[in-house]
C-alpha cells in the first residue's frame, strides 16, 4: 500500500515537472516564433528603420588628395566651402537661429524658420557651399543642433591641362575617369562622422554626447606627367589638328629609359561647333584602335635584323614599285625602284620591300616579334579602360595577311602600344611597362608607395636596336620624315600613312597619318608619337602632317624643360639652371607668339628668366596661374617685356564652382561590365546593358551631353 502510494506520488511529481518542461519549451517556441516574425518575415522593415537611424550618423567628408605632376605642381586640388545643416528636432531655439542666419545671409527670417520647422526629418540644409567669410561670422556662436560641414570640390588648377589623364569626379567626389578613378582609393581618404543620437521619435537624447570621428584626408598622387610637357603636347596637338583640318589626333610623350609617360592627350575636332577640344572623358590614346600603317614596319625590320636575315645594305627586290601580292591584290610604292637596300626600304618606307622582308621572316616569327613588342596585349599602363588591340594568330592568316600586316594593316593598335614599341628600340631593345602614377604620398608628404620602372622583356639585342635607330635617323634626315628634323638634335623616327577602313573598304580619301620618333638618337631619352586622324586639308602623308607636329613638340620640350631634366625627375632648381643654359630656346618662328597663359606663375617666371625676357606681374605672385599676357616689343621687333596678369588658384576654382556642370557621357568601351555599371551609377546615369563581359559599344559616344533621365545603351561581349 505504501509502496503504491509512493509510486503514485513520484508519478504525480513527475507529471507536474513534465508540465513545466512543456511550459518552458513552449515559451522558448514563442520567442522563436516572435524572432521568426521579426528577423525573417518583417526584416526588411527593420532594416529600413536601421538604415534610417544610422543616417543620422552624419558623415564628415575628408579632403580628397591632390594630383600632382612629377615636379609636384598640383594639377587638381580642392576648393573648400562650408555648408550649414540642422536637425530640426535638436535645435533648441529656432527663432534665434533663424534670426542669426537671416542677418548673416541677408535672407528672410521665415525662409529659415520654415526649414527649421520641417517635420519628420532630422536633416535640413540651411545654407550650402558658402564662402569662408560667412563661416567666420558664424564660428563662435553656439548654435545647438546646427551642424557645420566642410564640403570640398575638385578644381583643375590649369584649365583643361591634363584633364584626360587626371579624369573627373562625380558630385560626391568619386573618381569616374582617369587617375581620379584609377586611384580613387588612395585619393578619397576615410570618412569621419558625427552621430546624432535620437530616440524612437527622433527627439534629442541628452544622455549621450555626440560621438565624433574626424575624417582622414586622402593621399596625394604624383604623376609621371610633366606639366610643361603636357601643356606643349596639348597646344601643339590642337594646333596640328586645326591646321590639317583633321577629325582628331593623339599624342604620347614617354621617357624612353623608364617608361614614364610625360605627357599625353587626344583631341577631337568638333566640326559642328567648329572647335578642337580635348575629349574630356576619353583616354583615346589607350582606347582608340587604328591601323598603324608604315610605323608598324618596326616589327619586321627589327625581327629580320635580329634573326640575321638582313643587313642594312642587303639588296631587296622592289619590282619597280608595283607588286602582285595575290591574285588581284597589288601593292604600289610611291617611290618607284626595281630594287633597294634594306636601309632605303626603311628610309623611303617601301611597302613592297618590307613585304619581301616579312615573307622571308615567315608568319610565325613575325607573330612572335609583334607579340613581343606588346601588340595584341595591353601594355599594363595604370589607367582605366586600356584596349588590347587586335593581332591575328598565324593560323588565322590568309594568303595576304602577312604582307598586309608587315606594312601595318589587318591589325589594330593603340597609340600607347606604338609609342612603347618605339621606346623599346630607343631603349636598346628593352621593353618597359608604361606608367603614369609615380608615387602615392600622405598629406604630410611621406611617400607611401613609389612606382619604379618595370622592364617587361628584351625584344631585340642592343646591336639590332642601334642599327634600327641608325636607319630611323636616315628616315628623318633623308627619307620620308625630313620635316621632323631639328637643328643640333639627331632625331630617329618613322612615318606612317594608312588608309582608313571605311565601310569595309580602304578609303582613298581618309587616312591616319602618324610619326613616331625619339631623341637624342645617340642616347635616346624621349619618344613622341603623333597620330593624326583623317586630315582633310590636302596633305595626308605622315611625313607632311604628323612629322611637323612632332618637330614642334620636340623643340618646345627641348627648349622649355630640357632633355636632361626629364632623365632626372627630381627637380632641383640649382641644377636645372645650369642644364637649361645649354638648352636655350631655339630660334622659333613663333617666338613672338610666346604663350605662357595658364602656366603656373613660378614656371612662367623661370621660363622668362632663362630667355632673358623682362616681365611684370599684375596679381598674385605665388600659387597663381597666368591668365593673360601682354607683349611689349622693343627695337627690331624683339620682345622687350611681358606683362602678366595672374589669378590665385583658389579664386579660379571658386569661379568655376558657380557653374553647374552638365553630365557628359563617359568613355566606357573596353571596361568590364562591373566597372562600367559602377561608373554609370556613380554618375547617376540611367543605363541599359546588353550582354556581359567587356563593353564593346556604347550609345551615345563618349563626350555627348546627356539630357536628364536619358537612358544610355551599353553593348558587351564576353571574351
Amino acid at each position, binding site marked *: 500500500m505504501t509502496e503504491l502510494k509512493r509510486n503514485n506520488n513520484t508519478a504525480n*511529481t513527475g507529471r*507536474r515537472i513534465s508540465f513545466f518542461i512543456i511550459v518552458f519549451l513552449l515559451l522558448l517556441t514563442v520567442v522563436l516564433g516572435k*524572432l521568426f516574425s521579426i528577423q525573417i518575415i518583417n526584416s526588411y522593415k527593420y532594416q529600413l*528603420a*536601421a538604415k534610417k537611424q544610422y543616417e543620422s*550618423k552624419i558623415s564628415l567628408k575628408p579632403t580628397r588628395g591632390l594630383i600632382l605632376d612629377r615636379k609636384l605642381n598640383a594639377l587638381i586640388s580642392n576648393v573648400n566651402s562650408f555648408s550649414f545643416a540642422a536637425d530640426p528636432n535638436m535645435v533648441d531655439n529656432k527663432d534665434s537661429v533663424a534670426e542669426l542666419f537671416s542677418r548673416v545671409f541677408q535672407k528672410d527670417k521665415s525662409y529659415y524658420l520654415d526649414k527649421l520647422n520641417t517635420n519628420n526629418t532630422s536633416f535640413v540644409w540651411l545654407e550650402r557651399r558658402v564662402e569662408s567669410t560667412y563661416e567666420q561670422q558664424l564660428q563662435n556662436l553656439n548654435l545647438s543642433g546646427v551642424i557645420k560641414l566642410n564640403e570640398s570640390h575638385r578644381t583643375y588648377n590649369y584649365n583643361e591641362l591634363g584633364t584626360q589623364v587626371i579624369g573627373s569626379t562625380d558630385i560626391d567626389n568619386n573618381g569616374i575617369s582617369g587617375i581620379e578613378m584609377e586611384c580613387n582609393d588612395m585619393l578619397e581618404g576615410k570618412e569621419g562622422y558625427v552621430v546624432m543620437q535620437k*530616440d*524612437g521619435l527622433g527627439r534629442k537624447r541628452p544622455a549621450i554626447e555626440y560621438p565624433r570621428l574626424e575624417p582622414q584626408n586622402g593621399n596625394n598622387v604624383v604623376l609621371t606627367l610633366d606639366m610643361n610637357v603636357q601643356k606643349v603636347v596639348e597646344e601643339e596637338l590642337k594646333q596640328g589638328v586645326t591646321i590639317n583640318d583633321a577629325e582628331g589626333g593623339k599624342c604620347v610623350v614617354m621617357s624612353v629609359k623608364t617608361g614614364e609617360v610625360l605627357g599625353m592627350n587626344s583631341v577631337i575636332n568638333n566640326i559642328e561647333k567648329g572647335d578642337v577640344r580635348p575629349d574630356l572623358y576619353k583616354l583615346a590614346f589607350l582606347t582608340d584602335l587604328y591601323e598603324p600603317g608604315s610605323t608598324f614596319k618596326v616589327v619586321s625590320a627589327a625581327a629580320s635584323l635580329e634573326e640575321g636575315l638582313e643587313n642594312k645594305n642587303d639588296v631587296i627586290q622592289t619590282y619597280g614599285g608595283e607588286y602582285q601580292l595575290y591574285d588581284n591584290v597589288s601593292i604600289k610604292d610611291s617611290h618607284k625602284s626595281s630594287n633597294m637596300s634594306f636601309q632605303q626600304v626603311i628610309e623611303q618606307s617601301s611597302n613592297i620591300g618590307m613585304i619581301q622582308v616579312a615573307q622571308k621572316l615567315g608568319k610565325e616569327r613575325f607573330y612572335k616579334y609583334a607579340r613581343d613588342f606588346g601588340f595584341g596585349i595591353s601594355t599594363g599602363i595604370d589607367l582605366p579602360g586600356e584596349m588590347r588591340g587586335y593581332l591575328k594568330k598565324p593560323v588565322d592568316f590568309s594568303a595576304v595577311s602577312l604582307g598586309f600586316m608587315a606594312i601595318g594593316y589587318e591589325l589594330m593598335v593603340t597609340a600607347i602600344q606604338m609609342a612603347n614599341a618605339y621606346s623599346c628600340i630607343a631603349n636598346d631593345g628593352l621593353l618597359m611597362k608604361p606608367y603614369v602614377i609615380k608615387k602615392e604620398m600622405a598629406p604630410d608628404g611621406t611617400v607611401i608607395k613609389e612606382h619604379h620602372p618595370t622592364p617587361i622583356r628584351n625584344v631585340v639585342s642592343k646591336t639590332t636596336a642601334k642599327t634600327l635607330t641608325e636607319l630611323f635617323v636616315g628616315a628623318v634626315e633623308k627619307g620620308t620624315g625630313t620635316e621632323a628634323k631639328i637643328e643640333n638634335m639627331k632625331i630617329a623616327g618613322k612615318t606612317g600613312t594608312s588608309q582608313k577602313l571605311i565601310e569595309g573598304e580602304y578609303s582613298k580619301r581618309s587616312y591616319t597619318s602618324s610619326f613616331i620618333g625619339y631623341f637624342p638618337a645617340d642616347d635616346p631619352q624621349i619618344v613622341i608619337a603623333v597620330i593624326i586622324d583623317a586630315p582633310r586639308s590636302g596633305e595626308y602623308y605622315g611625313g607632311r602632317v604628323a612629322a611637323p607636329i612632332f618637330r614642334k613638340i620636340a623643340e618646345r620640350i627641348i627648349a622649355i624643360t630640357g632633355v636632361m631634366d626629364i632623365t632626372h625627375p627630381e627637380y632641383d632648381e640649382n641644377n636645372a639652371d645650369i642644364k637649361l643654359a645649354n638648352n636655350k630656346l631655339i630660334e622659333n618662328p613663333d617666338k613672338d607668339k610666346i604663350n605662357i597663359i595658364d602656366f603656373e606663375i613660378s614656371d612662367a617666371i623661370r621660363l622668362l628668366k632663362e630667355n632673358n625676357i623682362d616681365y611684370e606681374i599684375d596679381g598674385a605672385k605665388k600659387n597663381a596661374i597666368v591668365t593673360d599676357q601682354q607683349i611689349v616689343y622693343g627695337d627690331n621687333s624683339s620682345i622687350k617685356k611681358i606683362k602678366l596678369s595672374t589669378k590665385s588658384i583658389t579664386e579660379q576654382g571658386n569661379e568655376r564652382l558657380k557653374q553647374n556642370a552638365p553630365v557628359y557621357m563617359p568613355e566606357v568601351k573596353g571596361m568590364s561590365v562591373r566597372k562600367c555599371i559602377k561608373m554609370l551609377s556613380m554618375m547617376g546615369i540611367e543605363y541599359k546593358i546588353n550582354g556581359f563581359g567587356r563593353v564593346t559599344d556604347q550609345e551615345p559616344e563618349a563626350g555627348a551631353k546627356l539630357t536628364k533621365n536619358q537612358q544610355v545603351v551599353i553593348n558587351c561581349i564576353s571574351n
Partner: protein
Amino acid sequence: MENKVNRIDLWILIPVLVLITFSIGVVFSASSSWSVKMSGDSTYLFKNHLIRAVLGICMVFLFSRIDFHNTITVRKLLMLAAVGMLLYLLIFNVETTKGVSRWIRIAGMSFQPADFVKFALVINLAYMLSKKKDYISSLYYAYLPMVSYVMIVVVLIAIQPNFSTATTIFATSMILFYVGKVKIKHIVFTMVSIIPAAILFVLSKPYILNRIFSFQEHTSGGDAGYQLSQAIIGFGNGALIGVGPGNSNQREFFLPQSYDDFIFSIVGEEYGFIGVTLVLLMFGIFIYRGMQLAKTMEDNYGKYLAFGITTVIGMNAIINMLVATGTIPTTGVTLPFLSYGGTSIIFNSIAVGILLNISTHRNQPKGEMWTEKFAEDD
C-alpha cells in the same frame, strides 16, 4: 548500500559551455564602443567579462565535484547572508544606478545580491520540501515556515525597488511549491492575497508604470520604449544570417545596455536568426535535461534542488528573451551566461556545478540516508 557515482550529464554541461564561450565574443563586440566611452580602452568591459567567464567555467567544474548535499549544511548560513545583504542594501548602500540600489561592491567587483539570494532561497525551499514531505499539507508546520522565507526575500527585494526580480523569485517559489506537492489551496491563497499588495506597490512606483505603458506604445517615448524599439531593430537588421561577428551597428550607442540586458539583440543582429535559434536550442536542451534530471531523481532534496536551479536559470533566460523581443514589458533581467552581468555569471555557474553534481547521483535509489546524514533538527 550501493553508492554508484555516475558521470556528469554532458547534455547539461555542453549548452552552458557553448553559451559562455559564445558570450566572450558577443560581449566583446557589444561592449567595445561603450568601453571606449567609459575608459578609452575598447577592451575594458570585455576584460572584466573574460575574467568572470573563465572563473565561471572553473566554478562549474569545481562545484560539480563537491557533493551537493553539502549545501544542506550551509543552507541557514546562506539564507542569513542573503537577508543580511538585502538589509545592508536598504540601510547603507548609497551607490545607485538609475536611482535603484541593487548593487554591492566587494573586492572591486560590484554584484547584485539578488543573483545570490535566489539560489540561497531555492536551496532552503528544496530542503524544506523534502524534509517536510510527510506533512506537507500542514499549514502551520509546513507551509507557513516555507512561505515566510519566500516573503522575507520577496519583500526585501521589492522595496529596493526591484519589482521584476521580486516577481520572478515569487513565481519560482510558487512553481517549486506546486511541484513539491504543497496544497494547491495554500498556493492560490498566497497568490490572491499578494495581488492587491502588488498593485498598490506598482502604483507607488512610477517607473514601473512607465515601462508598462511604454511597452504598450512600443516605439514611443521614454527610455524603455526607445531601448525596446532599438532591440527589435537590431534583430530585424540581422535577418537570417546576421551582419557578421563584430559588425553590429546597434551597439554604436543606439541600443543602451547592448552588452548587458539586451545582448540577445546583438546576437540577433550579428548572427541573425540562425544565431538566436542556436541560443534558444542551447537553453532548450539545458532546461529539458535539468528538469528531466529532477524527474528521475529518487533523492527528494536533489529532485527539488535540480528543479529549482533549472527553473531559476530557465526563467531568467526566457524572461530576458521575451523582453528583448518585445513580447512582455521591459524588466532588468540579464540573460544567463550570455550577458555581461558581472557576478551573475559566477553564481549561475556555481548553480550549474551543483546541478551537474546532482546528475552524478541520478541512479541512487533512496536519498533519505543522505538527507538524514546532513540534516539537523529544524
